[in-house]
């Protein structure tokens, strides 16, 4: 690989670094968008099976019946691409256009620090976790601006709900992450993963028991649930609760502008699942000693987490807005603080397993 790239590097000279970075960005973004597209199909299929129906099974490639449904995301994408983007006459036009961009951009930007495998990361920065926290909190601006710029009462209510909800769950999420950084003593995501590969059980070839999910189990569960709330997924989907405020902030959007919100939501789902896998489920590490580590483990763990998103959606009714607030402020935040103190005490005690 190095040998192949060397001539190109010599040719480009100083331009090499930016060009190579852009290439790497595309290498991350394009498969990611592909995953997003097929996650929509997976969602419809999985929920379909749970609801004793088939899900999409008509759109195929080249009329091959066995591939029924596989081309559905592409058909959906094309449809949305060709649809008119209606600009409400009473809206704030510039903000109206800006909002979907602001929603999607952070959910893609956050992938810069995700380590897919050992050394396979776009930006191996030391403040990785902080970067993630900062960038994912940006996503809410897209929602708030969309609600404001639409000049619609439903959209406005949706964005108000979203703002309150994200603030509440961001804190719980933050505390959950603080415990992770305490035990791994690093903000670098690669180091967090590597830290999980050490310990008594990892030495015995059972890395799965050394991962953070066991000592930090409450944080693991809590982080994932907060992630579901953060991405506005059922049962926390009051922001777009379709039977209450129809589609919330997206109500006035159509065509590709609407699709961008959708992409952002699904990209966020994948992001939260990937982060859960990295911080609690050992990222790219293999669960047992005799199998090699690699990116496929991260993919498998992320898929496992994503399935929970879909499963939750098919099972639960939706919370009411104030109940979400109550859960966030009165349950999650106290629990995280208690566990934070507990982990702190554990680390200081002679029984610490993180020395």
């Amino acid at each position, binding site marked *: 690989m190095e040998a192949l790239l060397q001539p190109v590097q010599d040719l480009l000279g100083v331009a090499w670094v930016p060009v190579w970075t852009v290439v790497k960005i595309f290498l991350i973004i394009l498969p990611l968008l592909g995953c997003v597209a097929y996650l929509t199909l997976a969602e419809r299929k999985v*929920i379909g099976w*749970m*609801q*004793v*129906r088939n899900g999409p099974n008509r759109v195929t490639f080249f009329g091959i019946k066995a591939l029924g449904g596989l081309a559905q995301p592409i058909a959906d994408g094309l449809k949305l691409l060709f649809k008119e983007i209606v600009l409400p006459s009473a809206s704030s036009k510039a903000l109206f256009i800006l909002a979907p961009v602001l929603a999607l951009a952070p959910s893609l930007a956050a992938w810069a620090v995700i380590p897919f495998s050992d050394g396979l990361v776009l930006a191996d920065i030391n403040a990785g976790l902080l970067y993630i926290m900062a960038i994912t909190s940006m996503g809410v601006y897209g929602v708030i601006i969309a609600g404001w710029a639409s000049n619609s*009462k*439903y959209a406005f*209510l949706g964005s108000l709900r979203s703002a309150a909800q994200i603030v509440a769950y961001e804190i719980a999420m933050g505390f959950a992450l603080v415990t992770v950084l305490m035990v791994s003593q690093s903000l670098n995501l690669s180091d967090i993963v590597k830290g999980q590969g050490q310990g008594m059980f990892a030495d015995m070839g059972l890395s799965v028991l050394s991962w953070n999910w066991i000592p930090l189990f409450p944080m693991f569960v809590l982080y994932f649930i907060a992630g579901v709330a953060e991405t506005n997924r*059922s*049962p926390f*989907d*009051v922001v777009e*609760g*379709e*039977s*209450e*405020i*129809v589609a919330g902030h997206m109500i006035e959007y159509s065509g590709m502008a609407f699709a961008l919100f959708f992409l952002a939501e699904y990209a966020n789902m994948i992001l939260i699942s990937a982060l859960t896998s990295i911080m609690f489920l050992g990222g790219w590490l293999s669960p047992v000693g005799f199998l090699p580590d690699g990116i496929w483990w991260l993919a498998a763990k992320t898929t496992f987490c994503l399935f929970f998103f879909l499963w939750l*959606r*098919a*099972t*639960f*009714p*939706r*919370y*009411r*807005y*104030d*109940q979400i607030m109550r859960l966030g402020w009165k349950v999650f935040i106290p629990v995280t603080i208690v566990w934070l103190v507990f982990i702190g005490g554990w680390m200081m005690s002679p029984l610490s397993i993180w020395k």
Partner: protein
Amino acid sequence: MAEIRNYTMNFGPQHPAAHGVLRLVLELDGEVVQRADPHIGLLHRATEKLAETRTWIQSVPYMDRLDYVSMMCNEHAYCMAIEKLLGIEVPERAQYIRVMFDEVTRILNHLLWLGAHALDVGAMTVFLYAFREREDLMDAYEAVSGARMHAAYYRPGGVYRDLPDSMPRYEVNKFKNAEAVKRLNENRSGSLLDFLDDFTSRFPRYVDEYETLLTDNRIWKQRLVDIGIVTPERAMALGFTGPMLRGSGIAWDLRKKQPYEVYDRMDFDIPVGVNGDSYDRYLVRVEEMRQSNRIVRQCIDWLRKNPGPVISDNHKVAPPSREAMKGNMEELIHHFKLFTEGIHVPAGECYAAVEHPKGEFGIYAMSDGANKPYRLKIRAPGFAHLAAMDEMSRGHMISDVVAIIGTMDIVFGEIDR
């Protein structure tokens, strides 16, 4: 100091939780409802006025379209009113068939209500499960009347025809192979009664399934308990009937209190709520489905053993058989008069009510002796329930308004008429 105004929101008529065409003007303080003002009339089709220009029997199909999720119960009240005015007896077998289909209809209605209510509260899966069972009952409708929804099966004097000996079957097509069709047709090999018997033996298990998903679900309880409380006194004052009244703890059921047809021979219980909130009404309706299932089973047993006529032999009211009509001048005249001029109902007025799945559905009919009603008044249970919208939702949040609309089980066909 800025002026603080309440937020007025137009909820519907184009809204997924409006159950049709409810327009609700909500005055909000933040998310808390200060006033809920239901606007109706968007589905007004003037059924009562139309009935004045149709012969008595021509209005039967209009009744299907009132509450279009419990079709046969509407017909039942209408036919009962005509029978009362005419003073005719309905054959016993027809009475059993009516009771059976009333209960099938109740299950149909409650299944739709359960699915829609759960969907409003955000649980999608129950909706599709409920529709799976509805499909079977729709097939029963189709077998008996030829129509899946708007049956027009009950007629003054009885029911249109006897229960069929065979069920419609699935056929092999591009999407269903022979094996799948065989599996689907398994319970359709016998008569309609066999099919319903099979359904009623499966149905309690399905209800358990819904209850697993909802009854003890914490989120479901958080969303329904203490939402839209109606005290027994207020429930009576507001004219509530059916599960809405029973959910508040008043054991009022026309099937028990003024039994019509053969309900007095049926063995069933009336579930009653305690707190009068949405959760109690949910429990009441789920239990009603189980009780309806019991009644259907009792009817199946009786109907199996007792063949007989299913419509009055008074040919001024019910048409003669095709065979008799072809060979008999008298019957031909009866047939001709009945289908051109219709039934002549003696002058008078009467009120006939049935325990409809949604409450007391009544028909007040006035006849001046002609072949058409002089005036027809429909008492729709949903109308009184919707009128309590403001009282029930005041002080709750927007999400609760949706839950309250769901718990009322409103259908605009009957409210707007």
